[in-house]
């Protein structure tokens, strides 16, 4: 054969973004003002406000981080995701939190409110584990509150003694690969 049949990728060519499997998880930074507090103790966090899942005016998609991108046990994956977010351009404050939700449950909750979302791995310069949730509604207070109460209610606080300090950018490669590439 005279020619190599492999077509070299052109500069700038991008692989289509990976769609996250429904059993995987998303992590979203929740600032202090969007954490649900105890009525009698403003420093005691009891959950997440639906407002945490509302896109900020500057966001075009809902920005999150992919938990299974990181290697190790679930606890190690959570540490990896938090350290990667701390290393990104996000303004992570000491008292902020991180909400963790299952992709399938989030998509089902959105579908029940007639939103057909797409959860795509779209790495960005400062966070290779970045996930963009597309077709996310700008306004749906009931959906956001339901997510905060159920599908996206697992919360880890940034100042929790169980979470090691420090920041470390996400690795260039995901620890997870799709079944057909294994």
């Amino acid at each position, binding site marked *: 054969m005279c020619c190599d049949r492999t077509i070299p990728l052109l500069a700038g060519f991008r692989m289509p973004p990976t769609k996250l499997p429904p059993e995987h998880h998303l992590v979203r930074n929740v600032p202090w003002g969007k954490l649900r507090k105890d009525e009698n103790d403003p420093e005691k966090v009891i959950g997440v406000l639906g407002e945490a899942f509302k896109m900020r005016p500057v966001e075009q998609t809902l920005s999150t981080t992919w938990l299974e991108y990181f290697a190790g046990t679930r606890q190690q994956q959570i540490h990896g995701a938090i350290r990667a977010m701390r290393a990104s351009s996000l303004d992570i*404050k000491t008292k902020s939190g991180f909400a963790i939700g299952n992709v399938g449950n989030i998509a089902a909750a959105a579908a029940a409110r007639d939103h057909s979302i797409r959860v795509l791995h779209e790495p960005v310069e400062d966070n290779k584990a970045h996930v963009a949730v597309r077709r996310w509604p700008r306004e749906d207070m009931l959906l956001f509150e339901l997510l905060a109460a159920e599908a996206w209610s697992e919360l880890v606080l940034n100042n929790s003694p169980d979470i090691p300090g420090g920041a470390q950018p996400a690795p260039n490669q995901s620890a997870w690969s799709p079944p057909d590439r294994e």
Partner: protein
Amino acid sequence: MTSLNTAVSNRAKSYDPGPFLGALPLPSTDASVERWRAATRTLVNPTPSAIVQEVPRSEMTIAERLYDALATFKLKTAMLAAAHLDRDERSRLFKQLDSLLDVESWDSTDTVTTEASFTTLLRMVLFLGGRRPALGVTAIGNFIATWTEGDDRLTIECKPQDHVRWVLLQNLDGRRETAAGETTTKRLPDVLRPYDPFARWFPHAAN
């Protein structure tokens, strides 16, 4: 016929108080005359450094804006709610505001909460009575009031002009019931009445 004196005063000219200046004694020595003139010149033609200039909001740091907002909210509370909130309740509210608007915790991408939203929050809290809510903020400068009872939660966003957006999640015989809407603070008890939140959250607003 009376004519109006429309002549513009000449600000460059020193002010001459004339022979009588209220009840103040007139200067008696040359030195005191000079001190008096200098003081009058400063009052009539102030130097730029003598004028207190308000810093444009866009040039203020986030810490300055949060400080100003906190001061405004506390002043507003003293003005509107002094007769309705006792000392402990005021102190509790101020603690919530201090915690929420702490510069070390504030998300720099958020708009600082507005006085218009705080006024709605305060009026709503006074109107509803009962349990005082926990507080949160939106990215666009509104306060959020929350009440939580186990898995049941009532969340109200306070918008300007007494407008509120509310979401209620509650369990009824093991089944999740949800409701949401937009109304005014005055109509809130009526709008929420089917969900019977009064026994738990606003016992004084039912009547």
